[in-house]
């Protein structure tokens, strides 16, 4: 089935079987391997991407369902090649990752939260990542990373300009 996906701002037409998940389409049809395949049945959250503004599990959507939708993967979060997004930077600084397998999903879940909540409580942060499993960190540093990213985004020039200060 012909399907058009806008991935990280770039429109791509792909021809997929209806049973191909968005996860497999991103990895195999679009060649973007940053979205990780974990359990492939909606339990682990490793494959989390942003679809039309919401964090979703890409293993629980078929690519054909996403026709015409805007998708952001981990490859699309940084401003330029070789750079890191504020959230990615914060994960590095607080040791919010060890093996890194859950990290793309964690970062996108965090970005979806920070897009709507500038100053999230730890409770809100924990809720936002409650669908993502990490077997290394014990989550404490991940919560810390998202808290730090939120602080930096609030204090950044862009945020100040948006607020008209």
């Amino acid at each position, binding site marked *: 089935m012909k399907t058009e996906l806008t991935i990280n701002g770039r429109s791509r037409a792909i021809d997929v079987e209806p*049973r191909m998940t968005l996860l497999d389409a991103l990895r195999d049809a679009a060649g973007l391997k940053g979205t990780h395949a974990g359990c492939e049945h909606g339990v682990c959250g490793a494959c*989390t991407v942003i679809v039309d503004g919401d964090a979703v599990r890409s293993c629980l959507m*078929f690519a*054909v*369902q996403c026709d015409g939708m805007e998708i952001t993967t981990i490859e699309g979060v940084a401003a330029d090649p070789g750079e890191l997004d504020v959230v990615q930077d914060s994960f590095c600084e607080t040791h919010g990752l060890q093996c890194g397998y859950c990290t793309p999903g964690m970062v996108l*879940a965090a970005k979806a939260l920070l897009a709507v909540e500038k100053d999230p409580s730890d409770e809100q942060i*924990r809720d936002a990542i409650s*669908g993502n499993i990490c077997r290394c960190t014990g989550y404490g540093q991940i919560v810390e990373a998202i808290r730090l990213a939120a602080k930096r985004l609030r204090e950044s020039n862009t945020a100040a300009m948006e607020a008209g200060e």
Partner: protein
Amino acid sequence: MKAAPFDYLRPGSVGEACEALAADMEARVLAGGQTLVPMLAMRLSRPSRLVDITRLEELSRIDRVEDGVAIGAAVRQCIALRSDIIASDVPLLAAALPHVGHPPTRARGTVGGSIAHGDPSAEIALAATILDARIMFLADGEEEEFSPEEFFIGPTVTMAPLGGLLTRVVFPSRPSGRVGAAFHEIASRRSDYAFASTGAQVVLDGDGTCTDALLGVGSVGDTPVALDVSALAGTRLGEEDIRGAVEAALEDLDCVDDLHATATYRRRAAAQLAAQSLRNARDRAVEETA
């Protein structure tokens, strides 16, 4: 973990969706897919065709209707959670929604899909049972209506008509007076299937006497159940009143044993959570100015 092949149809209208479902008994409705897609991935379900209803405008609305709030089958849980109409008119559902899955599953999962699936630990199914919502289907061109009590007949077993389409669920609006609602559950980890879940709604009159109380328990047995706590009417919902009513209401409750929790644990947890829900509902009603 790859689904078996199927056809995919994105109908342009409810009529077209119904025709497709009626024409092929192996076809299934695809709404949020948060339960169906894992079942396809594990090949526990092998439908011939998926009928994707998520883009049907007519099923994507939350409307005030004469006797309540009608939630279309394609309304996603995250939209329901942000709905001012649900927050003000159906406080018990609003209290239950934050417990449904987690943000990424709520972003796709639908209110109607949760009802249609009929999982005994589904929070939305429990809220519908407590409030006696109306579950509306279209089948063979006829509208069919079910009460939750008749619709949920076993774990993920429902009275859904063969080849039918769930179109909307109508939740009764909050009664007049000072209303409070609360929802509590316990699970091994956040967002996992609950071992016991409870919801309560109470109405107080001007001087704080209870005029009506509703209670229900989910996750402990084969279906969510509404329990009779009408004895609370006329009391001031003191600790003794609540404990007595919960004990009486849970007396004949069927609880199941499984790998995750024993029946006795579920009963104990349900009793604590039920009392907690009633206390919180009372406190919220007290906060409402008469």
